[in-house]
């Protein structure tokens, strides 16, 4: 046999085997599941029906329990008076046994006058009424009789004649006195051909004292209906159900009805062997294999049940009939598939294996060197194709064999040529190597430069770090240790701004903003940052962080951070501010004293003063006024220089500010007979400006104009939205223009460059107003610069000067400083 044949045979056997195995295991599995379901379902049904039986008995019990428990006046008073009567007797037992004997000796249907009195008492009538009521309701004599004894066991009232007078020696009587309730197991009564239960109940008076016992007989045929229900509810034809007592007597079976409680078949009894009881089994009964399921009585509420069982049986043939149908189908399928596999095997061997064998022999012939051999397979399938392809392959091998020899000759020629080319390339390489040598020496020089540069960075007194795009430190110079206290090796590899190394003292918002600026906006950032040294000391740095952006990808490659420790400078600044505050306080008190006392003297508060006195005191007042101005100007200068003055913008009407400033120079204007003109545009928008700063600007420009214009000259002021002079302003922003022109002495050429310098005064200005401070324009320019505005002027000696201040229309930006400038 060929290997291929073997393989196919093995596959066929394996397939058949697995098919059979699959069938067996599936069958077994389905059977188990089916059994499990059948069992669980039946247990549920049987338990439920058994419960229904318990509930019925409970309900019958309840009919009478409610009767004896409700302090029925007739019942209780009859029993109490009977008990009292008996209590007065000398010998109760003797009395009862005497009465009992005469009771039993009477004829079966004979009613003695004594009996008659017990059968017709009000209580007896009540019992009869109740029995009649239930019997009528259930349609048969469900409670054939009922009677009541007193606490000594003697009958007090009865619905009909009883066999005994004395019941105290009866088992049911004693049990019910003990437990309050007794239900007997089922009893077969031959005379009435009925199965019944005895129900007896202890009777207590309202105070809970035992006064007597109630008993009735309960014909229990109504419970058979419940058992019958199983049969009527089920489709199974072979179903039978049995109600069995705990000692194995058959109460009722669906097929035979109720009998005289004969012993149940062995199979049914076997369910009671062992605890817990078996729930199901398969066994033979009456020659048939049956499946049994058992439900055991659980009782209901205070009724604890009688230990009965309900057992249901089916013929196994019927239960598992479905399973059999399934099995038959499976057998058929397996058989068909088996036959199919065998046919398949034959077909494969005929159509595939045989030609393949032939082809194999053809290959062997050609292998031995016979290139003239051809395969004879002509079929039109893949094997035929293969044979044809094989034949053409043999032909081309034959052709190529002759051409190969020619090709070998040609290629030998090529190789000779190529080896000459290689020699040439080698010479060229040597030349290149010489060039590389030259470049190397250049690189060495470059490296030396780089080394110098490295040294410069390493030794710089500013703290320099280089980080990657994520802020991880790649390089740190020596100054890092001097400033932070951590050595370069300790910070390298850590994230810059790391809380442990830098303290993380700034607002979270600050760090977020910083990162956004350098990383996402890719813009350099300058900021003052508060940090903490290794030894816990706080320090402030002026930091400059620059992102290095890749020109090609436009992504940040590195960050270079330079930090200068400005802690000492800040401390000096602070000391300076405090000094200024102190000085101003110390200076302003005496200045105010002089101001107010001269004011009072001049006002005549001290009495009349003569002209000379007035003149002298006015001189004191003027000088004092200049001192006050000087102190204010110095204070403002120091605040501007410290950068601590605040900018608090609010809506400002520039024209109104100008008017106020004009009022302040009114005195001078009148004295010198100056003419004031206004040339403003009609609609100037309200602008968001700091009113104090704006006032200082206008005050300085207007008071300078008044100071340096000769008597009778003209001052022209204007607030404008457009003016030819505004052409020189940058176009990216809109501005509002303040323009102040005078016909004054002008600014000499040599002073033009210095006019905004602190304390600088031009010669002609000095001669016109010897008391000027040289701070006014310096202050004005500082404010304008801080407000991102522009200031410039046009001047001509002895003709006049025009000052222009352009403020951004968007207004001043708010700045929280600690000091407001004095106006």
């Amino acid at each position, binding site marked *: 046999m060929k290997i291929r044949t073997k393989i196919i045979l093995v596959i066929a056997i394996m397939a058949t085997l697995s098919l059979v195995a699959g069938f067996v295991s599936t069958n077994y599995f389905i059977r188990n599941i089916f059994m499990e379901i059948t069992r669980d379902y039946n247990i549920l049904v049987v338990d439920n029906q058994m419960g229904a039986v318990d509930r019925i008995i409970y309900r019958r019990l309840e009919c009478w329990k409610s009767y004896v428990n409700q302090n029925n006046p007739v019942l209780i008073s009859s029993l109490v008076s009977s008990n009292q009567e008996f209590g007065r007797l000398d010998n109760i037992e003797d009395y009862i046994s005497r009465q009992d004997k005469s009771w039993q000796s009477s004829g079966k249907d004979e009613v003695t006058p004594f009996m008659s009195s017990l059968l017709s008492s009000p209580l007896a009538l009540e019992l009869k009424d109740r029995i009649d009521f239930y019997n009528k309701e259930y349609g048969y004599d469900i409670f054939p009789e009922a009677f009541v004894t007193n606490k000594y066991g003697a009958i007090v009232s009865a619905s009909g004649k009883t066999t005994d007078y004395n019941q105290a020696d009866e088992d049911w009587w004693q049990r019910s006195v003990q437990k309050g309730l007794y239900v007997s197991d089922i009893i077969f009564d031959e005379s009435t051909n009925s199965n019944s239960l005895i129900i007896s109940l202890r009777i207590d008076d309202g105070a809970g004292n035992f006064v007597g016992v109630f008993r009735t007989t309960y014909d229990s045929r109504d419970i058979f209906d419940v058992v019958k229900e199983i049969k009527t509810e089920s489709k199974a034809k072979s179903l039978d159900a049995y109600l069995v007592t705990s000692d194995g007597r058959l109460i009722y079976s669906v097929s035979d009805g109720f009998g005289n409680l004969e012993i149940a078949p062995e199979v049914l009894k076997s369910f009671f062997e062992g605890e817990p009881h078996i729930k199901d089994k398969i066994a033979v009964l009456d020659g048939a294999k049956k499946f049994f399921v058992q439900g055991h009585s659980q009782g209901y509420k205070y009724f604890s049940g009688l230990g009965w069982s309900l057992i249901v049986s089916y013929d196994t043939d019927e239960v598992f009939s479905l399973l059999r149908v399934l099995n038959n189908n499976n057998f058929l399928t397996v058989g068909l598939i088996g036959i199919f596999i065998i046919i398949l095997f034959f077909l494969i061997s005929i159509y595939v294996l045989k030609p393949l064998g032939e082809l194999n022999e053809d290959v062997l012939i050609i292998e031995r060197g016979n290139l003239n051999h051809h395969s004879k397979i002509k079929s039109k399938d893949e094997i035929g194709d293969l044979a044809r392809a094989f034949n053409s392959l043999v032909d081309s091998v034959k052709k190529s064999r002759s051409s190969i020899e020619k090709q070998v000759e040609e290629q030998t020629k090529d190789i000779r040529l190529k080896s000459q080319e290689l020699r040439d390339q080698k010479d060229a390489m040597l030349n290149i190597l010489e060039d590389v040598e030259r470049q190397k020496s250049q690189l060495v020089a470059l490296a030396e430069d780089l080394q110098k540069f490295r040294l410069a960075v390493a030794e710089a007194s500013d703290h320099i770090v280089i980080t990657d795009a994520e802020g991880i430190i790649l390089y740190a110079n020596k100054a890092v240790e001097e400033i932070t206290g951590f050595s370069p090796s300790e910070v390298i590899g850590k994230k810059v701004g790391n809380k442990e190394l830098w303290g993380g003292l700034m607002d979270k918002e600050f760090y977020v903003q910083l990162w956004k600026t350098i990383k996402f906006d890719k813009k350099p950032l300058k900021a003052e940052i508060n940090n903490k040294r290794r030894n816990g000391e706080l320090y402030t740095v002026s930091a400059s962080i620059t992102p290095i952006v890749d020109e090609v990808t436009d992504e940040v490659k590195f960050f270079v951070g330079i930090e200068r420790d400005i802690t000492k400078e800040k401390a000096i600044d602070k000391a300076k501010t405090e000094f200024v505050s102190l000085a101003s306080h110390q200076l302003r008190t005496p200045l105010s004293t002089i101001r107010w006392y001269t004011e*009072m003297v001049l006002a005549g508060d001290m009495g009349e003063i003569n002209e000379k006195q007035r003149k002298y005191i006015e001189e004191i007042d003027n000088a004092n006024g200049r001192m006050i101005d000087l102190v204010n100007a110095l204070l403002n200068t120091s605040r501007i220089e410290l950068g601590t003055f605040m900018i608090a913008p609010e809506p400002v009407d520039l024209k109104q500010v100008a008017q106020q400033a004009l009022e302040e120079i009114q005195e001078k204007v009148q004295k010198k007979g100056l003419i004031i003109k206004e040339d403003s545009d009609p609609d100037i928008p309200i602008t968001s400006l700091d009113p104090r700063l704006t006032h200082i600007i206008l005050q300085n420009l207007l008071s300078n104009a008044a100071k340096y214009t000769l008597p009778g000259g003209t001052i022209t002021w204007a607030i404008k939205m457009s003016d030819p002079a505004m052409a020189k302003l940058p176009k990216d922003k809109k501005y509002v223009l303040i323009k102040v022109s005078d016909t004054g002495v002008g600014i000499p050429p040599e002073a033009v460059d210095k006019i905004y310098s602190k304390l600088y005064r031009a010669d002609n200005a000095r001669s016109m107003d010897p008391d000027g401070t040289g701070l006014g324009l310096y202050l004005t320019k500082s404010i304008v610069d801080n407000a991102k505005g522009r200031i410039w002027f046009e001047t001509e000696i002895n003709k006049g000067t025009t000052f222009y201040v352009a403020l951004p229309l968007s207004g001043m930006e708010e700045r929280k400083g600690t000091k407001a400038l004095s106006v």
Partner: protein
Amino acid sequence: MTNKKTLLIVEDEPALREAIRDKFIREGFAVIEARDGQEGLDESRSKHPDIVIMDLVMPVLDGLSVAEKLRQEPARANVPIVILTNLSENEQVDKALSLGINDFLVKSDTSLEKLVKIVKQKLNLA
């Protein structure tokens, strides 16, 4: 004048305090003087001035603390206060404004005449 207005000056510098006192007496006011913040507080509680002129930097209790306390006492919460000081610190101005004090004057920049004018305006006398 039948209805003399009472002015309380709280100022630690005697020369300045006396100048203001003399000026206002001349203007027909009844003037009470206090040399520090605590005295100012006591005087305004016992003598019920119609208006208070007060320095900020003073011994014992500073002016803004006094103003804050007065604003919390219903009987004095509405008495106008004029701050007269040497310094115009931003925080102080803010605090004064938050206490409803709009008159925040720098001593050397203010003439007595102007002071009298402001006080009279506050009392609706002008």
